[in-house]
């Protein structure tokens, strides 16, 4: 088993500070962008910007602070499959929301607006 060989990888402090700096920069971006309502330019733009920033930050944390970048292949596969299963949940649920509902129950209009602003 090769699982235990990668465990004691020592990450230089420099890397941690660099990642911390990047996280701070992205936080600043979030705060800065929050002053403008991007909906004026394109309906879903607000959520797209917010989610992109959040995804990049989460990826940095997982890769460096949680050491996944230095972990065994098996650990990486497990992390990716977690995300893949989340994608299944989202994609198959959206498959329902994005195609026309069979009937039009009272909350059907709600169902559209929650996920498709504008």
């Amino acid at each position, binding site marked *: 088993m090769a699982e235990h060989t990668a465990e004691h990888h020592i990450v230089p402090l420099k890397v941690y500070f660099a990642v911390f700096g990047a996280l701070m920069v992205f936080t600043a971006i979030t705060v800065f962008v929050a002053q403008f309502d991007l909906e004026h330019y394109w309906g879903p733009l607000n959520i797209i910007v917010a989610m992109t920033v959040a995804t990049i930050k989460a990826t940095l944390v997982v890769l460096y602070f949680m050491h996944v970048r230095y972990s065994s292949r098996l650990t990486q596969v497990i992390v990716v499959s977690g995300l893949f299963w989340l994608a299944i949940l989202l994609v*198959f649920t959206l498959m*329902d929301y994005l*195609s026309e509902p069979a009937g039009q129950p009272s909350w059907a209009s709600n169902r559209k607006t929650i996920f498709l602003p504008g």
Partner: protein
Amino acid sequence: MATEVMETTSTRNYLNNGHTVKSWLLTLDHKRIGLLYLFSISIFFAIGGVYASLIRLELITPEGDLMTAETYNKVFTMHGVMMIFFFLIPSIPAVMGNFLLPIMLGAKDVAFPKLNLLSWYIFILGGSLMLITMINGGIDTGWTFYPPYSSIYSNTQVTLAGVSIFITGFSSILTGLNFMVTIHTMRAPGLTWFRLPLFVWAHYATSLIQILGTPVVAITVLALALERTFQIGIFDPKLGGDPVLFQHMFWFYSHPAVYIMILPSMGVISELIANMTRKRIFGYHFVAFSSLAIAVFGFLVWGHHMFTSSQSMYAGMVFSLITYAVAIPSAIKIFNWTATIYKGSVSYDTPMIYALAFIGLFTVGGMTGLFLAALGLDVHLHDTYFVVAHFHYVMVGGAIIGYLGGIHFWWPKMTGRMYPEVWGRISAAIIFLGFNLTFFPQFVVGYLGMPRRYHAYAPEFQVLHILSSAGASILAVGFIMPVFYFAWSVKFGKKAGNNPWMASGLEWQTSSPPPTENFTYQPVVTHEPYEFEHVEEIKNAGKLENKTA
């Protein structure tokens, strides 16, 4: 050397290694934790069974005369909650998986023994909260907790029940995590992936579902509790939420949860059939991979619970199609088991009777699932007793039959004593008859239009309901009998010896009951699973192990 091992271990084993309560409650031994689970889930099964009896008593007459509609709602809800979350989900993995998995791998314990004990304590904490819920009057939402009824209108303890389910989920996640790491890292020398018993493959697939699915249901019931407590709009349309979203999130876990219950049972059946027919499982690789296929594709079919819930027609078609497809790996197993039995040297001991019952009953349960997967027919059958009959054929006829078969098969390993074979066969026959009499009429009455979850019904359904209730009382006798003869056998049963079935598998090479460290030597595996020539060799040579070369 081998014969000495036999003598020393027969006196010193995991059961007599400490007799205090503390030695049980603080044990890190996977075998003792398995027995702790056995004890606790049996209690939950008994409670769930009492609720089942109340349901069947009420339904003997068309009028709602035994209890009010509200009480009836609570009774069927508590039956479902107890049986699903506190018996079926933990049943085979937490009892037999815990007991057997490390032994089958030739390991001393699971990868994280403390986490294993923690999972039992979490289970007990969650279970206690559910018992408190029950004493406080229970809940009346159905085990599916659909909002907005559950989040706004129900006057029962939904929040407490939700917290209980949330907590219990973590016990399931920890068990799955433990098994997965154990299978990856603790296999004995020579035990390659394709030498693993199919029981282990089934548990690997189950662990996958437990780890990837359970967090979703945990967060869903938590969101429900939050909506109920703080009026946050998540699922209630009045607050800007969406009830169909709850159904998506709930069934994302709860359909795969069906496979958490049935896959381990299929693993047990593979072991029973191979060992009771003395043949290598026909198509070993197909049976192994079909478990993984079920685990993965089982996540893509949840919308078949929502055909009548305003889910879009397009989504319904996709979910229906994949549901048909997911029947294929189950069918692969059934065909391969049948092919294994063909020309095998079949012995009709109790475990094999359960295995044969499983094949028949699970096939009926699975095939009627295809009726329900059909978009058009489901509109007629949705929320009728046909659905109730279908999932009881899968859950009782499949999961519980497999559980009982496995308990009988490994009882000599767990206790060192044989159960009385005659009583075993009688109770298996009673369960088979009682089960079919209980649930077959429900297919008919459901098809005729009897809805589920009603305490009063049209008089023309009465005959079928009486048949069903009569069957339930027979079934109850069949379930109670093993409690007595198992208890009797612990003291008075015939001494089992290491390998009473002349079965293959590492668990049969150690003593019964096994020592705390499972093996007094390091087992080395040199051949494929289910090769019975090797077992004969051991017998002829009078040796304990044949592979420490």
